């Protein structure tokens, strides 16, 4: 089957490749770009392990064709850390509050939480739970994930305050 020339910006860097239009974005990221942070958990857009940002919005990359993402800006877990290489507040908070166990849902979960906190910097617990309701975790029971996101929101707010 014929391949198309695909160009996109991933984690701030321009990338390109040849891929069949039907190639799922998750496979393009993982196999062509070696960005193996996002995972495939369910194949049917229920688990959210494949969550990435597409043009500034959280999407499930197992249910997006690479052709649809041609020309787009994509952010994966590999692009979440601060520009100076230090961990983002969310990454720190997940470790601090035991927000992960097997780690398989974690990249999608943090990537989703990262976008959630940009959409709503000061979410309530209910808003966090609703905000990550497209991401399944089998290990943590979510309680420490919610705690981690809450803590990161507070940390980000205090950093913002300090900067102002």
């Amino acid at each position, binding site marked *: 089957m014929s391949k198309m020339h695909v160009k996109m910006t991933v984690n701030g860097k321009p990338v390109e490749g040849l891929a069949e239009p039907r190639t799922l974005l998750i496979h393009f990221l993982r196999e062509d770009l070696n960005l193996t942070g996002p*995972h495939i958990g369910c194949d049917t857009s229920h688990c959210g392990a494949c969550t990435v940002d597409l043009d500034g919005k959280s999407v499930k990359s197992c249910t997006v064709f690479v052709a649809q993402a041609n020309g787009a800006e994509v952010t994966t877990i590999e692009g979440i850390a601060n520009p100076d290489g230090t961990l983002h507040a969310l990454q720190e908070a997940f470790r601090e509050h035991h927000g992960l166990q097997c780690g398989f849902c974690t990249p999608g979960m943090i990537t989703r939480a990262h976008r959630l906190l940009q959409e709503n910097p000061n979410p309530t617990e209910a808003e966090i739970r609703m905000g990550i309701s497209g991401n399944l975790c089998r290990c943590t*029971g979510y309680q420490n994930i919610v705690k981690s996101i809450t803590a990161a929101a507070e940390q980000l707010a205090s950093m913002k305050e300090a900067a102002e």
Partner: protein
Amino acid sequence: MNDQTPTAVERAEKLQGLGSKRKRVEDARFTQGKGNYVDDIKLPGMLFGDFVRSPYGHARIKSIDKAAALAVPGVVAVLTAEDLKPLNLHYMPTLAGDVQAVLADEKVLFQGQEVAFVVAENRYVAADAVDLVEVDYEQLPAINDPFKAMDADAPVLREDIKDKMEGAHGPRKHVNHIFTWEVGDKDAAHKAISEAEVVAEEMISYQRVHPCPLETCGCVASMDKINGKLTIWGTFQAPHAVRTVASLITNIPEHNIRIISPDIGGGFGNKVGVYPGYICSAVASIVTGVPIKWIEDRIENLTSTAFARDYHMKGRISATSDGKITGLDCHVLADHGAFDACADPTKFPAGFFNICTGSYDIPAAHVTVDGVYTNKAPGGVAYRCSFRVTEASYFIERMVDVLARKLDMDPADLRLKNFIKKEQFPYTSVLGWEYDSGDYETALDKAMKTVDYTGLRAEQKANREAFDRGETRKLMGIGVAFFTEIVGAGPVKNCDILGLGMFDSCEIRIHPTGSAIARLGTISQGQGHATTFAQILASEIGIPADMITIEEGDTDTAPYGLGTYGSRSTPVAGAATAMAGRKIRAKAQMIAAYLLEVHEDDLEWDVDRFQVKGNPESHKTMAELAFASYNQAIPGLEPGLEAVSYYDPPNMTYPFGAYLCVLDIDVDTGVTDVRRFYALDDCGTRINPMIIEGQVHGGLTEALAIAMGQEIAYDEIGNVKGATLLDFYLPTAVETPAWETDYTVTPSPHHPIGAKGVGESPNVGGVSAFSNAVNDAFAHKGLTHTQMPHDHWRVWKTAEKLGLNG
């Protein structure tokens, strides 16, 4: 000393040993997307395997035409049973003493069964070719109901063994029968029940569910033809056992097989078994000479690799009229699917189901279990529990509640009255287990006080009156559950898998500068072994946990062990770690005696050092002793500081806990809202409270999923009804309530550090607590028992049958 000298307490804190809420060392890579799971592995020239699977529950294969598939550019091979037969690999042994078809031989026995294995240059081409393999089937009548499996006119499922009526566990009663297992004194139990003042009888079914880790099963097999070595990376909860099985199946000498479990995205029992995908990948790599990757998709995971439960337990329990339990009898019909691929210790075809007397001092009990074949996927694994323990616990916890209704007693009171008392430990149950330690009364008492149990019952009484007056359409349920697990399999004298004793192991090397590496026979799937085993060792040898690398999962480097499932890592490998640490310390003591020029007996251990008794200024730290072991010629001692321990546990461990669930049921919609859940766990010595709490949260959430929604259901012709995460119930953060955790500490007397294991307790206790709460909500209306899962429609049906709807 001066006032800057750290005290013993300060030095101990620095170690981050036992009891420390140490942050996990695994997290740095996982939070940055730098985990290394099996599907992340990419090798030069690697091809992809994908299965053609049966669309039918039971059918004869009339022909398989590979031509169109082989014509697809990029397709390298299509394997069928005919290709495997010359290698004698079309069947493989299961861990339960049966055989399982690697690729279907003449017949398919369950929907989703592996029929052909397509090998292609990438997964897209492989999937295209799978669609083009033409299989001609003749559909046969299927058995989806285990109660019909042994009917006289039942279809014969396993033609391969139809003449072999002596099974792995004794004679088979019917061509679809697998085994009968009997424990206890039948006459005594029946006598107790027939003479009892009160007898309760109930059929308790535990539906078919699936562990469903977020990462599915998969592997990469790579045969190096030059040095003859086969390496398989895969989602293996028991890598050494896989190596031994692989060697037995393929006749490749065991030293030429290397099994590596990389990071594993959850296991919960799903990744204990050996699956056709592993065998086909290995064969394909041997044939093609290049690495082969095989990764299940979610439908394949839910329909072909290791389900759990499908236990149908008919019980009778008897008591005196004032509530002293006198006898218990249980018959289990166990649906094992098309092949017996349970992962139980060999002598226990129904696992440790005979822990079903639970936490109670029951004088007479008797259990029989019959396993049968049906047209369903094989498995029957321990989904976040020890072998068949959650089934046993669910059974007794429901039966005790049913008995309480019959006696018109409060279910908590009935439990308190029948608990094994603190002073009875070690306690030998009538079904043969020796419980190591426990203090049940204290635990339940603490739980009841914390939640204000009396207040809750008063609130429930008011709710029921309001319901009857028509003021509310909600009913409040209170679930009380008390569980005793049996984990840490197990003593080699009675626990083995395929003849491999269920010991575990730890090998430690101390480096010259005082850091260390320890390797174990287990493998973490999220439990945080790299963090907690270092903590055990830090406390034993006085080296900070941060200076200890824990490595697992590579059979070329790790010592032999039976892996991680059944909460055995802490009880068995954790013990091996402590024991190996003690060997290190013993040698270090000899070195210290030499360096300090005193007799060994004149030294005492103090956190991280040996010091001369009565003269703590004269001491050698473990770091100093490590260096000395590499640079001093010490008479009578070999250089270096290493130790290995293979730990054969003297007994299992018996964690326990008291769980309370409060929920509200909307009788008009069947929607259940968990208002409060309190979990008190006693897992003996607590290694890392942060990780324990996380394990409890996760286990409770899995219990919620099982009790309230999970089911792998089959229709009459053997079709799976709903095999994606749309239908298979995994709750999101919205459906999951906040959990309250608590604990008591009753150490195990026989474990070197007193730890018992905790990861599976919340699943074992949680399911009973949820189910008891749903049943309790309707108890005053005459309900004795309603089957799980308690999803909306079943709860609504219960309300309807009780005349509560409209």
